[in-house]
């Protein structure tokens, strides 16, 4: 053990003596470690954003629409499907055993304005009590509209986070009047801010919710309707199956006719998202893998140079009583030291970049002791594998020939 330590020290002395060369060589590894950390952090932060979006859609919600939630749909099959109608909800409430709450969700986009500020907003027309079905997006200020307001088709809205920030500069929006499609509405509630979403619809905050009765009366332009159904997360697949059958009944489809509606839920996104995540991670690890291999080759090259330069030293050390193993360890530790220097630089770089980034955006990066440990292990592995062949060459040198080497 003592002799191992002594030989490691000899190897480290060689690193110190050639510091410039060592740093240049270790640069490849710096880049490799840097990429792998950034990719890992990126994937985990995308993950978190996605989870937030999933929260918005909820793992207990079923959405019935004309289009499936899928990126690879054949749009011509779906465009002629009959529109979703509120009538189907009666069937669902009547026959379903898994659905505990229902609402229509009418969607459209329109120009909204407050004073001299204007923006395109996403509008939802829903039933009273829809706030009970909201999962991530809670009311944080004011209130939701009441049954009475729905019955009377009152012009009241609940606004999302960006609407509040964009129109009211952070002032309390309750009681303010905004104009949507040239009709004046009163703001009665405010939704919790969500941040950027990872799913269709972009930001989840650019949203205005109003009674579906008001919506139908005033906003009769283009848009689409969906049914929002609430179930228990554990009943999801059975509930979807049941809803599919009830929808066929509601639409009076014959057994040989295909469904002319789609029963959707957020887990459909999960699979697609996983595929994207794997693609991103795969690309990242490919780049990392290549840069690690290239840097290993670089270290190996420098180690061969080092062995060649110090052939006489090796001969001398052997004549003085160094065993082949002593020499092997000396050169292996030199290689491992080079790779650890590269890896540590990478880690420091990642730390600096994340510190700089966090000043601008709340990008969550998992910078922890585990990452340092993994990096260390990778560096040791690369150092040993890159240094093994040169170190063995050095260890197997014949001392007589090595001493004669010029």
């Amino acid at each position: 053990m003592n002799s191992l330590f002594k030989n490691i020290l000899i190897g480290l002395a060689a690193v110190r003596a050639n510091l410039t060369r060592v740093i240049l060589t270790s640069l490849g590894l710096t880049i490799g470690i840097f990429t792998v950390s950034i990719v890992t952090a990126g994937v985990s932060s995308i993950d978190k954003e996605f989870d937030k979006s999933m929260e918005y859609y909820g793992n207990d919600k079923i959405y019935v629409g004309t289009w499936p939630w899928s990126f690879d749909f054949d749009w011509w099959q779906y465009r002629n499907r009959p529109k979703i109608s509120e009538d189907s909800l009666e069937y669902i409430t009547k026959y379903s055993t898994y659905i505990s709450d229902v609402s229509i969700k009418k969607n459209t986009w329109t120009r909204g304005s407050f004073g001299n500020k204007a923006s395109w907003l996403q509008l939802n027309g829903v039933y009273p009590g829809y706030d009970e079905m909201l999962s991530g997006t809670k009311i944080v200020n004011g209130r939701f509209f009441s049954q009475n307001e729905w019955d009377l088709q009152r012009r009241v809205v609940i606004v999302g986070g960006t609407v509040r920030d964009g129109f009211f500069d952070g002032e309390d929006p309750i009681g303010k009047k905004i104009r949507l499609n040239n009709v004046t509405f009163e703001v009665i509630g405010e939704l919790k801010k969500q941040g950027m979403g990872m799913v269709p619809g972009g930001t989840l905050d650019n949203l205005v919710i109003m009674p579906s009765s008001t919506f139908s009366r005033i906003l009769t332009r283009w848009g689409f309707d969906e049914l929002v159904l609430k179930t228990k997360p554990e009943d999801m697949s059975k509930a979807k199956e049941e809803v599919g059958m009830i929808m066929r009944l509601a639409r009076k489809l014959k057994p040989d006719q295909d469904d002319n509606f789609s029963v959707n839920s957020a887990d459909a996104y999960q699979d697609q998202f996983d595929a994207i995540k794997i693609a991103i991670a795969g690309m990242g690890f490919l780049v990392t893998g290549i840069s690690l291999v290239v840097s290993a080759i670089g270290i190996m090259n420098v180690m061969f140079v080092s062995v060649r330069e110090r052939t006489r030293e090796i001969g001398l050390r052997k004549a003085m009583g160094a065993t082949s193993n002593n020499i092997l360890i000396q050169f292996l530790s030199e290689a491992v030291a080079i790779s650890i220097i590269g890896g540590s630089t990478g880690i420091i770089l990642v730390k600096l970049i994340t510190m700089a980034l966090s000043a601008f955006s709340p990008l969550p990066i998992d910078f922890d002791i585990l990452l340092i440990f993994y990096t260390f292990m990778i560096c040791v592995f690369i150092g040993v594998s890159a240094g093994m062949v040169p170190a063995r060459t050095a260890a197997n040198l014949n001392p007589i020939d090595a001493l004669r080497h010029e």
Partner: protein
Amino acid sequence: MPKSKKEIIAIDSISKIYHLGNNVVKALDDVSISIYENDFISIMGPSGSGKSTLMNIIGCLDVPTKGVYKFNNELISDMNDSQLANIRNEKIGFVFQTFNLLPKLTSLQNVEVPLIYSSLGRKERLQRSEEALSIVGLSDRMTHKPNELSGGQRQRVAIARALANKPSIILADEPTGNLDSKSGVEILNFFDELHKAGNTLIIVTHEESVAKRAKRRVELFDGKIVIDE
């Protein structure tokens, strides 16, 4: 040769044979020699006579093709790499023509090199190295690097390095070959002193003046010992 002295090296009819393509080269041909404690031997011979090969075998850097080599009654001829390294470390001190000091290390660190491969602790290593440097009269040059020393001083550092592990024999290969005559004489005087102090010395040389210092003269020709007196 007084037989009362302890026999350190017993070489019994060893041969070293190289195969260069189809040619068989007998670098050493049936050589026998005994070396006793406190011997001062010069090995001479023209180039190609086998003196370097003999030196390498005595120094345990090489093993003979045939024959028996005993060092302090230990059979060397069929030792493996790390056993040979151990013998070199503990029993043999090398002095080279080109000094072979490590340029980035100080005198003290250079002298310490063989001790690093021994089992000595750090304190003892330092103490031994300082001792060895003071024997060669370089106590005031311990922190100097080789390029800050004269040729003679460098060779003295190399001798200190050879002495550091208190070896049974010191093997010097043309120790004055790279020195001016004044430094050369200085080193040879120093070898005399080492001999008087009880060390066993073997000097490989082709200079008559160097060989004259030795108490015993061995001459090689075509891989055979032709003179041993």
